[in-house]
């Protein structure tokens, strides 16, 4: 148990795997832009570097400036422990999908709160945008997750995973929910077109503007882990589940590739466009939910 929580598929594995995945994303994106790009272990190097850097404390920072990033990383890590990765879940109990949704949301919330606590105008604008965006994407996210949960009648993502392995993909039965889920992955990890909270050209680095060193590393890491967790959850809930490592890797890389395409190909939405877009997909997912409820 301890081994499972700490090493595989626990914390260490989660952290390393999400970094590598993020590295693959960066590499493939670079190749799409006709560049060589960084090595795939680049995020690990970035992380080590950031940890070894000086931590600056801005004068105007409010209470919480120091601990919000750590809370963010902790909550996404716990969310990671509740997610089936290649068919293994280190922590599992009834009702854990609800807990998982909460921890993921809280991870994002903590990041935005960290932006507020830095009192930097860019940070505040970034966090504000983040919160508005959250209103947008939580709706399709939750609705789309409810679809397989209601269909299967179980709350454990692990069991849904196993169910899918045996009875076929929920993504085919509920295509709308799957698409809505995918869109909310993009929005949750702030991949273009949803990179508004950290919009480089408008508000420098958004919520993380004031952060340096270890705390910045934590914010970035939380971001990467969120990406990985959401991909694994997607596989468990919609894309056929994964019983062994090979199947997991193949499926997750395909998903990652599609996310990379989105990152490379589209321009940034404005915040009002984001709300419209995500809510549209929320209602699309509702179609499937209604179908499920009616059939049952």
């Amino acid at each position, binding site marked *: 148990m301890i081994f499972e929580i700490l090493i595989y598929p626990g914390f260490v594995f989660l952290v390393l795997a999400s970094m590598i995945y993020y590295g693959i994303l960066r590499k493939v994106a670079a190749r*799409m*832009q*006709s*560049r060589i790009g960084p090595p795939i272990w680049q995020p690990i190097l970035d992380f080590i570097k950031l940890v070894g850097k000086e931590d600056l404390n801005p004068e105007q920072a409010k209470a919480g400036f120091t601990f919000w990033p750590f809370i963010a990383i902790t909550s996404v890590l716990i969310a990671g422990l509740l997610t089936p990765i290649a068919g293994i879940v280190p922590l599992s109990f009834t009702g854990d999908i609800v807990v998982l949704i909460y921890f993921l949301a809280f991870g994002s919330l903590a990041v935005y709160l960290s932006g507020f606590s830095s009192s930097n*105008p*860019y940070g505040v*604008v970034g966090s504000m945008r983040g919160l508005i965006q959250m209103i947008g994407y939580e709706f399709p996210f939750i609705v789309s997750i409810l679809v397989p949960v209601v269909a299967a009648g179980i709350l454990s993502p692990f069991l849904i995973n196993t169910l899918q392995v045996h009875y076929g993909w929920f993504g085919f039965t509920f295509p709308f929910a799957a698409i809505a889920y995918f869109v909310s992955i993009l929005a949750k990890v702030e991949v*273009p*077109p949803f*990179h*508004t909270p950290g*919009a*480089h*050209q*408008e*508000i*420098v680095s958004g919520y993380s503007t004031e952060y340096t060193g270890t705390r910045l590393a934590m914010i970035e890491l939380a971001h990467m882990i969120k990406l990985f967790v959401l991909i694994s959850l997607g596989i468990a809930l919609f894309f056929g589940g994964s019983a062994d490592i090979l199947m997991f890797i193949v499926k997750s890389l395909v998903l990652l590739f599609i996310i990379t395409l989105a990152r*490379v*190909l*589209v*321009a*940034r*939405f*404005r*915040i*009002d*466009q984001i709300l419209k877009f995500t809510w549209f997909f929320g209602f699309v997912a509702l179609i499937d939910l209604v179908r499920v409820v009616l059939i049952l």
Partner: protein
Amino acid sequence: MKEEKKMEKVKEERVTYSLPIGPQHPMYVEAENLNVYLDGETIVDVDINVGYLHRGIEELMQRRNYLQNIYLSERICGICSGIHSMTYCQCIENLLDVNIPERAKYIRTMVLELERLHSHFLFLGVVGYEIGMDTAFMYAWKDREFSMDMLEQVSGNRVNYAMPTVGGVRRDVPNHIIPSMLKKLNHLEKRTEYYRKVFLRDRTIIARTRGLGILPKKDVERFSIVGPVARASGLKIDVRRDTPYLKYDDLDWKVIVEKAEDSQSRVMVKVLEIFQSIKILRQCLKKLPSLDREIKTKVPLVIPKAEAIAITEAPRGELVYYAMSNGTDRPERMRIRTPSFVNIIYSLPIILKEQQLADLPAIVASIDPCFSCTDRMTLIDTKSGEKKTVDETYLKKLGERRLK
């Protein structure tokens, strides 16, 4: 007056906070400061605070001799450095009343059009970057490298080409590089066609450019805004056609005008101008081998008392140089009127009003702001609009006399 006061008050009530953009900000590479007053995410007003790049070039010019000033004028700005030094040289040639050899004229035209090419590709990339589409930036700048290569081939440097000199050009274009240049031009033409489709049709780009940043034609006329920005609002002005210089009246090309007045039309004007530049370049390259090899006329370095002016079309609009000599090897007075100054100072507040903060970079990028040459002139009294028009017609008359 009362109206204005009221407006002021409304503004004050609405502004919830202000956001400083710059002087160090990812939005543009140069150090500049915009103060944006916001109501939530809506822009109520902007204050433009220039002067971070002021280097006192006109004053420096009075302390250097005519040859040294070529390189100084080039360093007013690194993006359209070629047009600055060419206009400077043209101005001094007008002072001296000399004619430059035919070949030199063709080479100058060529360098100017190459520069327009690189500058417009740069612009496309920057627009892509500002709307959050890094790939468009990467692709445009990747293709820009071809025009940079051509410039390097022709002039020996990627930026700040040091091509013209008073009385001609400094380097000849050898015949053997012409085929490779034509090949690169073909490639660029294909790519431009691609960008035309992308910027015209891509859904996400349209969402961020179409119908935004409207600059009405009457405001263009009122503030005498120039260049592609004016042409995108339906005003057909182009110095290359109105008062032709170098070889532009002998070459076959046309002025691009768009009517939509928004960000997208400003982008489209530039895309279509790339085609025209390529066309001009092809004609120049075809003509070049048949011309006489002479590239420079001899000119005296001490210039008797005179006044002259030169007007050209920089990639971003009309550029005016005025020079006054006093019988020594240094100018008595130089005066430069650059396009970006009018384009930025007057049009930004108009096109940014009531827009979203998120659209600010895209809109600002669409007028292609570059502050290097703007900052040279921050000490000018911008309120005396009347006086300036008078000045301009006077200068134009003077210039026409010189240009004939």
